[in-house]
C-alpha cells in the first residue's frame, strides 16, 4: 500500500491554487485583511472628520465639572462633581435597577410559570393571559404606560395616599419610614461584625454536628439565627446601657414641597422597575414552564407514590431537575433585562444610557462617551454571564 501511495504521489500533486487547504487559508487571510482594512478606513474616516470640525478626541474631559444635576443617585453627587463621577452615578443606577429587576422578575416568573401548569383553571388561565399580554407588547410601550397612565396619575404630593410617619405614595414616588443610625449607633456598630463572625462559627459547628448525626448538611438556618440573636441581644444591651437606641426610625413627613425623611423610591425608578419586572417575568415564566415540562412524568409519579405532597414534589424533585434546563435561557433574560434598562430614559430614570447621552451632549465628546458606555454595558453583561456560567456548571448533572 505504502509503495503504491508513493508511486502515485508525484502525478497526483495538486497545484496550490486547487489545494483546498491552501485556498481555505488564503480565503481566511483575505477575509481578515478586508475586515481590518474596513475598520482602518472607518476609523480613519471618523478621525479625519473629527479633526475637520476641530472636535478633540481625548478623555481629559472626565475630571471636568459636569454642571448638571442627576435626578437620583446612590452616591453623593452634585452639579459641581466631575463627568467621571456622573458616569459612576449612571453605572450604579443601572446596577441597582438590574439587580433588583433580576431578583423580582425571577420570583414572579417562577410563580407565574408554575401557575401556568396549575390544575386550577382560573390560575392557569390568568397566568397564561399575563404571559401573552406582557410578552407580546413592546417594552417601551409598557414603560410609558406605567409612567404616564399609572404613576403620574397617582395623587399629587399634597394629597398623597399616606399614613403619617409610616408611608406616603404620590406621583413623585413612595416614601417609607426607615431605620437610621441613632446616637448610640457607633457603640453598637462593632456588634454588627461580631454578629457576622458568630454566624460563621455557628455555621461551621452546626455542619460538623450534622455530619456526625449523618443528617442533610443544611447549616444556614442555625447560622442566621445566631447572627440575629447576637444583633438583637447587643442592640438591647446598648440601648439599656446608653439609654438611646442604636437604630431609630426616620419617619417621613410633608415639609414644604416634599416628603422628607425615611427612604424614597422615585416615580421614575418605580416605573422602570415595574416595567422591566413585569415584562421579563413573562419570559421567565415560559422558561420555567418549559423547564418543568422537560422533567419526565415518571419523576412526579414516583414522588407521589412515595407520599410527597405536591409542594414537596415541586421543591425537592421537579424544580432542582428543571433548573438544569432553565438556567441557560434564564441567563439570556438577565442579560436582556440589564440591557433593556437603558429604556429608562423614557421614564426619566437616570441610568447609564440617560446619563451618558447627557454627558455626550454637554461635553461634546460623542465618540469617547459612547465608547465608555459600550465598555460599561459589555462589562456588566460579561459579568452576569460569568456568574451564570459558574452557577450553571455547579448545577450540572455530575456524570460519573
Amino acid at each position: 500500500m505504502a509503495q503504491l501511495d508513493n508511486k502515485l504521489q508525484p502525478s497526483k500533486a495538486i497545484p496550490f491554487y486547487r489545494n483546498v487547504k491552501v485556498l481555505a487559508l488564503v480565503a481566511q487571510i483575505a477575509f481578515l485583511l478586508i475586515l481590518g482594512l474596513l475598520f482602518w478606513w472607518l476609523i480613519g474616516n471618523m478621525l479625519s472628520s473629527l479633526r475637520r470640525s476641530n472636535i478633540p478626541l481625548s478623555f481629559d474631559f472626565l475630571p471636568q465639572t459636569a454642571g448638571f444635576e442627576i435626578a437620583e443617585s446612590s452616591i453623593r453627587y452634585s452639579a459641581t462633581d466631575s463627568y467621571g463621577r456622573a458616569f459612576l452615578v449612571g453605572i450604579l443606577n443601572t446596577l441597582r435597577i438590574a439587580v433588583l429587576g433580576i431578583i423580582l422578575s425571577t420570583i414572579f416568573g417562577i410563580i407565574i410559570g408554575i401557575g401556568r401548569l396549575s390544575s386550577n383553571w382560573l390560575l392557569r388561565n390568568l397566568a397564561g393571559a399575563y404571559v401573552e399580554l406582557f410578552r407580546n407588547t413592546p417594552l417601551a410601550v409598557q414603560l410609558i404606560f406605567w409612567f404616564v397612565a399609572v404613576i403620574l396619575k397617582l395623587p399629587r404630593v399634597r394629597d398623597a395616599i399616606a399614613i403619617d410617619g409610616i408611608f406616603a405614595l404620590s406621583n413623585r414616588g413612595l416614601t417609607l419610614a426607615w431605620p437610621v443610625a441613632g446616637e448610640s449607633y457607633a457603640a453598637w456598630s462593632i456588634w454588627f461584625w461580631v454578629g457576622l463572625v458568630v454566624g460563621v462559627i455557628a455555621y461551621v459547628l452546626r455542619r460538623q454536628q450534622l455530619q456526625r448525626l449523618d443528617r442533610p448538611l443544611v447549616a444556614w438556618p442555625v447560622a442566621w439565627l445566631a447572627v440575629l440573636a447576637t444583633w438583637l441581644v447587643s442592640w438591647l444591651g446598648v440601648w439599656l446601657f446608653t439609654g438611646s437606641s442604636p437604630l431609630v426610625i426616620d419617619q417621613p413627613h410633608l415639609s414644604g414641597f416634599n416628603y422628607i425623611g425615611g427612604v424614597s423610591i422615585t416615580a421614575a425608578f418605580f416605573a422602570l422597575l415595574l416595567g422591566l419586572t413585569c415584562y421579563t417575568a413573562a419570559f421567565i415564566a415560559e422558561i420555567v414552564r418549559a423547564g418543568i415540562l422537560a422533567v419526565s412524568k415518571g419523576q412526579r409519579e414516583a414522588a407521589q407514590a412515595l407520599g410527597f405532597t405536591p409542594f414537596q414534589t415541586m421543591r425537592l424533585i421537579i424544580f432542582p431537575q428543571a433548573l438544569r434546563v432553565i438556567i441557560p435561557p434564564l441567563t439570556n433574560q438577565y442579560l436582556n433585562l440589564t440591557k433593556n434598562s437603558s429604556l429608562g430614559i423614557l421614564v426619566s430614570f437616570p441610568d447609564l444610557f440617560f446619563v451618558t447621552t447627557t454627558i455626550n451632549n454637554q461635553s461634546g465628546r460623542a465618540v469617547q462617551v459612547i465608547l465608555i458606555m459600550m465598555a460599561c454595558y459589555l462589562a456588566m453583561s460579561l459579568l452576569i454571564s460569568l456568574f451564570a456560567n459558574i452557577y450553571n456548571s455547579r448545577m450540572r448533572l455530575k456524570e460519573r
Partner: protein
Amino acid sequence: MKVNRFLGFVSVLLLAAFVAACSNQAATNEPSSPVEAAPTDAPAIGAPVAAATEAPAPAPTAAPQATTAPAAPTASGGSTLQTIKDRGELICGSNDQVPGFGSVDASGQTVGFDIDFCRALAAAIFGDPNKVTFRPLTAQERFTAVQSGEVDVLIRNTTNTLTRETVNGMDFAPTNFFDGQGIMVRKSDNLNTISDLDGATICVQSGTTTELNLADAFRAVGASFTPAVFEDANGTFSAYDAGQCDAVTTDKSGLASRRLSLSSPEDHVIMDVTLSKEPLAPAVLQGDAQWRDIVTWVIYGLFNAEEYGVTQANVQEQLSSDDPNIRRLLGVEGELGAGLGLDNDFMVKVISAVGNYGEIYDRHLGPNTPINIPRGPNAQYTDGGLIYGMPFR
C-alpha cells in the same frame, strides 16, 4: 470544500471591489487636492505633505494619510451647498415640540418661527421655501446630528455657547431670538423668587443649557432642589402638568409656548426672574466657511429687510427703489449673492417666501398669536432692540 472555494471566491471579489473603491476615491480626490492623491505608496513624500496640509498631528506613515484622505475634500472646499443642491433639498434640524417656534400643525405642516428660517434658506438656495425636510431633534440629539452631517443646519432654539462652538464642533450664525431662562410655577403656590423654591422638585429637560443654569442659580442663593430630568419637552411638561414637579424651567420663550398646552394655562405663571442669557441661534458644522456665510447672511438679510421696510407684499415694487441699501439687498446692484455662491437676487426669493424678520416674528409670536411675546430685545436696534443686520456691501 465547495463552501471553502466559494468563500475564497467571494473574498477575492470583495477584495477587488474594495481596491476599486479605494482607487476610485483617490481619483475623485485629485481635483480638490492633487498633492494628497499621489502619496499612496511614497512615505517620503507623503509624510511631510500630510504635516503641511493637515495641521494637528503629522501622520506617522503614508498609509493612514491615504485612508483619511477620502473625507478631506469636503473640508473647507464649500461642498455643503453643492451637496444640498445635488440632493435637491435642504435638511434642517428643527423642533416639533415648541409651538410658535417649531411644531407640526393640524394639517401636518411644520410651522414656526425657527421653521421659517429653514424655509428662508431653502428659498435662498432653490427659490422654493418648500424644498426642505425637517428633522425633529430633541435637545440631546441635536449636536450629534450636526456633527454627523445628518442635518445641514440646526435651527432649533439652540443657545450659542463657547463649548458648543468649540468641543461640539459647531459654528453659530447670528442670534435670531434673544431669550433668557425662566421658571414657571402654579399661581396658587405664590412663589416669587428662587429662594421660595427651596426644596422644590423642578422639571427640566436634559442636554440643555437650562439644566446647567438651574444648578448654578440654586447654588448661588444656597437653595436646594430635586431635579426631575426628562428627555424631551413633552415629557418635561406633562410631568409638570401632572404635578410631579412644583416648577418647570426652560427658555422663557419655551415656557410661554408650552404654557398654552397645559391643561389649564391660566393657573400657571412665569416667575419674574431670569436665570441666564439664552441667545438662540442657528448652527452649522464647523469647517465649511461658505455654508456658514450663507446661513449668516440670509439672517442678516432678513434683519435688513425689516429695517428698510422691504416686505413680502412690496418686495417686487422695491426692486425699483432708489435706496442703494435696498438695491444691494435685493441684488439689483452689485454681485453680493455671487460671493456666497447664490444668485444675486437671493434675498428677493427669501422675502417673497417668508417676509422679513419682523413679519416672521409677527406671524408666529406677535400680538395676534396666542403666544404673544413682546419684541423686547428682539426689536430692531433702531427701536432699542438688539436686532442689527450687518451691512450688505
